[in-house]
């Protein structure tokens, strides 16, 4: 007998080890969006009463940057190595360190939901 693969088993398993996945980060440029409003007090998880919006905007990306597949680095519109700005610059929207986008390093960005179509 062949067992059927439940393709959503990790997304719906409350204690599955993350290691059952091959965790991948959110694609660059695929900004998460949600217009959901906070739920009323009592419904909203208590720890969310302390969340705050970043006081400074995320570091903006230089216009026209691209990935140079030969040199294997990001470059600006003139083909020069991309300078991400002062690595000590503010970027408090990052969770860890201030050298740029560190992503919400939650290891399970996509759970087992597919990425939106390219």
């Amino acid at each position, binding site marked *: 007998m062949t067992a059927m693969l439940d393709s959503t088993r990790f997304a719906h398993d409350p204690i599955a080890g993350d*290691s059952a996945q091959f965790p991948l980060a959110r694609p660059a440029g695929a900004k998460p969006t949600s217009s959901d409003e906070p739920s009323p007090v009592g419904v909203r998880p208590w720890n969310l009463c302390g969340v705050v919006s970043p006081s400074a905007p995320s570091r903006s990306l230089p216009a026209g940057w691209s990935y140079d597949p030969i040199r294997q680095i990001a470059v600006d519109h003139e083909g020069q190595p991309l300078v991400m700005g002062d690595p000590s610059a503010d970027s408090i929207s990052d969770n860890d360190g201030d050298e740029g986008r560190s992503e919400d390093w939650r290891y399970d*960005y996509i759970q087992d939901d597919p990425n939106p179509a390219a």
Partner: protein
Amino acid sequence: MAVLILTGDLDSTADHMVEVLGDRGVEVHRINTAWFPSQLSVAAELRGDRWVGALRTPHRVVDLETITSVWYRAPEAYQFAAELSAAERQHANMEAKYGLGGILASLPALWVNHPSRMADIAYKPVQLVTAARCGLVVPGTLIANEPAPVQVFAREGQTVTKMIGASSIIEQGKRKIGFTRLVDPPDLDDLRGVEQTTHLFQRWVPKAYEARLIVIGDHITSTTIHAGSTESYVDFRTDYDANTYCLIDTPGDVADGVRRFMSSAGLLYAAFDFVVMPEGQWVFLEANAGGQYGFVEHRTGAPLTAQLADLLAGGSRS
């Protein structure tokens, strides 16, 4: 011999590493899984106990048998064709995860770090017990979704709360971050919502300063983080401009505990956060197996990129 770097297209730390390894004459292949399947393909055949084949992009062929080290930094999610239905994308994603992800995860190379080991240690409760078992001092901690134990714990001493898994939320069209914060008496008067999910409460540790400890192979580099504002005194991430950094020697007992932690967790790289108490005791807060190191190198001059390059260049197939 080749180093495989798995990360996104926009990663200045990886850019720097590509250049450093290139200067050393090390063959480097940088791959973003988001290129799959349109700009990245794979063909590998099982021969004996390993997969033999290659990854291909329009610009390079990566012979799997040549890979001696893998730097698993932040590869991005697969991108599938818009023509697929949602169900078909779900199917394609799972097949890619177990197919391409499985082939890569099975490479008999030096991993910094292996994604499964990183994922295991992502759980803060696992980190805390691992740290304690390894001889590190950890703060008293309560995880609960019952208000009564929270009341008891928080009234026994100054308490902070922090997120366990996800420190940010997207709502109202913007991102909001949950930093570590002190629990004030008014907070305890209204704990409605605690029952909705697990919450972490931790005893506040009196601090002289915080320390970021970077482990790269056998190297341990510690830097103090002195908070310069009220906000960053509780959570240094809230006000980077107010922080000052200085290299510091790692106490022997802390280094020993950290090495045991790394061995137990199967990691070769991690960024640890400690509180250093006024009397000098180091108290473990957390470890991030994917934590950033560039800002420590920039502020202190510690040769972290060189250490990591040494580690990656020295890998061998098992």
